[in-house]
């Protein structure tokens, strides 16, 4: 490894590569398939969860190979990583199409459209209903493909317009469903004439956000913090009034910028935790696989 700070970015050209890389990788894939056939040859009944048997070993081997293949990009951009990446895209594409067909298109569109003379009619699956007019859904869906023919591209705009209208019409109710409770719960008075009666925070001798002043009056200092942060953050994103010329907007907006940094820090902290968890899970798999093989070979 070199300590070259000015190294080139990760994405890199196939230009300087040997022309034999493709043949070698495809041959390696073929060899892997042959190995899989050899390992699973003679399996009479397939049980993916069977603890013994060669299938589990084969699946683990595949997992280790593809994981290390993907991790190889950490060293540098290489043909193995790109090969694995393309296999991933191919598998994901095929899987999505297949799953969508069997779990949505076939039970909800194709089977109900077909007549009972062609598809076995069932009471709960809605198959064989003979709803021929469902075919218009396919015809309308074909309008999306007019994007490939420039003269007919207006049909694509028509189809997309309908979809945009559909989503836009539903946007208002989604906004109210999501944001209305947010707005109502933003009203946190700093001083109240009653005890909100919230339970004591776990492990605390007193609730610092519920300070008794006198009589039945209570002061909530954290509510002040909440109001300041909320208003200053909203001021920062409020562009209808120019910040430069208006001190009433400029000062809260500047304060909001600093407070947003704390929010971003929280996001960064939780993101680090989240991303590292993904790596820990992968390394756990690699370790468990290698440990399993070690025990199998040497014990």
């Amino acid at each position, binding site marked *: *490894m*070199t*300590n*070259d*700070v000015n*190294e080139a970015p990760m994405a890199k050209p196939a230009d300087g590569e040997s022309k034999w890389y493709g043949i070698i990788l495809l041959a390696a894939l073929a060899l892997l398939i042959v190995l899989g056939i050899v390992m699973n040859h003679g399996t009479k009944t397939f049980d*993916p*969860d069977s603890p013994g048997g060669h299938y*589990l070993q084969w699946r683990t081997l595949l997992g280790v190979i593809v994981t290390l293949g993907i991790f190889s990009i*950490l*060293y540098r951009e290489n043909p193995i990583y790109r090969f694995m990446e393309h296999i991933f895209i191919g598998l994901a594409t095929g*899987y*999505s199409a297949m*799953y969508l067909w069997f*779990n*949505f298109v076939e039970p*909800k569109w194709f089977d109900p459209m077909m007549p009972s003379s062609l598809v076995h009619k069932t*009471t*709960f*699956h*809605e198959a064989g209903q003979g709803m021929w007019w469902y075919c218009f859904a396919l015809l309308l869906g074909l309008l999306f493909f007019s994007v490939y023919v420039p003269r007919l591209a207006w049909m694509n705009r028509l189809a997309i317009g309908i979809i945009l209208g559909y989503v836009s019409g*539903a946007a208002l*109710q*989604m906004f*109210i*469903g*999501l944001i209305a*409770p*947010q707005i*109502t*719960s933003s009203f946190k008075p700093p001083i109240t004439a009653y005890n909100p009666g919230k339970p004591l*925070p*776990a492990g605390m001798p007193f609730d610092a956000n519920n300070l008794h002043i006198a009589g039945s009056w209570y002061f909530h200092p954290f509510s002040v913090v909440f109001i300041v942060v909320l208003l200053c953050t909203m001021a920062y994103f409020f562009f209808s009034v120019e910040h430069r010329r208006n001190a009433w907007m400029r000062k809260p907006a500047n304060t909001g910028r600093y407070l947003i940094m704390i*929010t971003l820090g*929280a*996001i960064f*902290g*939780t*993101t*680090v*935790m*989240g*991303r*590292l*968890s*993904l*790596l*820990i*899970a*992968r*390394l*756990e*798999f690699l*370790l*468990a696989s290698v440990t399993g093989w070690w025990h199998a070979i040497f014990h």
Partner: protein
Amino acid sequence: MLHLMQSLDRRWIYLILSIVLIVALIVGKPVKPVVLPSVQSLFDAVEKAPAGPTDGKIILVSTTFANNTIGENGNQARAVFRHLMLRHKRFAVLAVSEPVGAEIGRIIPTSLAKRYGYVYGRDWIDFGYQVGTLAFFKSFPLDIPGNVKVDAVNHKPLDQYEIMRGIKTIQDNVALHIELTASASLFDWMMIVQPMTRPRLKIGYGCTGVMAAEAYPYLDSGQLIGMLPGLKGAADYERLVDELEMRLKPGITADQLSFASIPRISLYHSARYLMFAQNAAHIFVILLIILGNLGMFLTKRQAKPVSKEAAND
């Protein structure tokens, strides 16, 4: 030394990070985390949920995540299912617009069911994969069996199962919904389903660490009853479930609790065990941040005397 610090190749960082995590995974042991209030809230909500065999209600668990977040959501799901089974709560599993989640949502409860004496069709049921369309979210709350029709395991009509007797709407028959997800599917439930119910449907949220910070407003407004943020949330919930199990089964030892290894979906250790590695990783990242900035400050300091001399010339 300073030059080395400033120009360290990132591949050394990758290598050291890998070594730190592998060593932590080898020598690690389950930690006893301080439970977050949001995790405790969800635990209490499950405890109080009227979803026992005679209550006429079920708990809906959404496993809308794929294998890429199995470390976080998978551990959350395992802890939640253990809790539900310990307390004999009846539940239904579904995955909205996530095919792999549908598989995982079947595999985890099936692996745990034998240990807790749970019977499919009587104590739990799998609704499987559902397409997350607007039509689904608008009609599913009003007619659950009408929308799901058949279960995902045996492909039989839902009315043939004991658990589904009397289960019709979310308003009347769902005590709690727990959304374990790595996508934005929670917002569909909050935007469309929750406003349709009075009182508001209780929703618990198990998310990845990345999404945890943005969920706090919904906790405050009451739209979420509790939250499991990433692996930390899974470890906290697991601690609560372990303590509950040890209380309910006095003879059980701590070693016997680490049974729920499910290699099929790469769940080998408990979440609390993995938190040890998370600890190590956090310490490493914090050290990296400090070292990086230290190097920058020292470099600046070294550069200053030179510029002062130049100014005096």
